[in-house]
């Protein structure tokens, strides 16, 4: 007699999934593993949500609903959740937005990045009074008046450029090492914060503004 296959199901759902279709199956948001292959396939193609409104929205979902649906499918199934408890389905309408509009946004952000960085370093130089400080330093060390175009300024400019390049870890295609760049890291942190906030907001449905 063939040994009965275990109905132990291991479930792992990602914290956030971007979807473009309205019928969402379990395999879209996570992974299922089970010794019983038939059951595994059934679970993978289990429909966990149908989105009715055709507009962009982030839906906060609970893994307990998924487990309940799997148990409806097979009452003998043992589900072990290894992934997130609350997860987010980020629905985007199927229509891709216009390339021209995308590029307009990108160029606008590029201008803000460029001008913002230029402005930040200029305000720093101004705040810290770098030009005056350099003239003073030059006078102290060299014993003569600085004309404002000395090795100090040259060194500072080169050092600053090097510092920025090392900090950001890349320029164009050239890269120092395979670490993600600072903005990539910050972007990830920001997205994690957004997910956490969405899930926590879902959890408490008070009407008052509450900041504990």
């Amino acid at each position: 007699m063939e040994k009965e296959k275990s109905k132990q199901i291991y479930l792992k759902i990602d914290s956030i999934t971007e979807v473009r279709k309205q019928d969402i199956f379990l395999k879209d948001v996570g992974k299922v593993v089970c010794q019983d292959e038939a059951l595994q396939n059934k679970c993978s193609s289990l429909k966990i949500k149908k989105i009715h409104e055709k507009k962009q929205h982030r839906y906060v979902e609970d893994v307990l609903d998924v487990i309940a649906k799997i148990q409806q499918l097979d009452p003998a199934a043992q589900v072990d959740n290894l992934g997130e408890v609350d997860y987010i389905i980020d629905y985007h309408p199927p229509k891709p937005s216009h390339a021209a509009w995308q590029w307009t946004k990108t160029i606008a952000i590029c201008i803000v990045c460029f001008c913002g960085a230029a402005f930040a370093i200029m305000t720093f130089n101004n705040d810290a009074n770098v030009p005056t400080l350099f003239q003073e330093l030059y006078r102290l060390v060299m014993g003569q008046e600085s004309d404002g175009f000395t090795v100090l300024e040259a060194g500072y400019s080169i050092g600053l450029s090097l510092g920025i390049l090392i900090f950001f870890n890349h320029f164009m295609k050239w890269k120092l090492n395979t670490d993600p760049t600072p903005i990539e890291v910050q972007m990830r942190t920001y997205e994690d914060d957004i997910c956490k906030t969405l899930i926590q907001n879902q959890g408490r449905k008070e009407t008052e503004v509450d900041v504990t």
Partner: protein
Amino acid sequence: MLLNWKLWVMLFSGLSAGGIVAAGVFAFLAIIGVFPRLIGKTKTKNHILLYENLIILGGILGNLLDLYEFHLPIGGFLGQALLLTFGVAVGIFVGCLVMSLAETLNALPVIVRRIHLAVGLQYIILAVALGKLAGSLWYFWDGMGKLG
């Protein structure tokens, strides 16, 4: 001239100063969360490397322009247009920066808790924005900047 050791001392201290300042200023810019927010709002995550290139270029060129005071004789309508673009971009940037700072320091949550605010958080934020607009206009209008 090249044998003057003092010159080398100056060059080296300039280099070091630049490196440290870059680390400080740009780490601050990266950590304060302005860029992730702008990128998130416009959903243009796939261009992060391009944005970083622009930040790098902006930092380097801005510093050169500030220290060496190059003349860019563009003038006329094109010059005005460039200055307007710069002004708007810097305005957006500083607007995001000051609110990011206030947010990082938990200024709003603290105030909200202190006065047990229940409704109308959005109006407080609107008031902050309008106050900044009014303050900025008044500042430039009356030439307050020249007083200091």
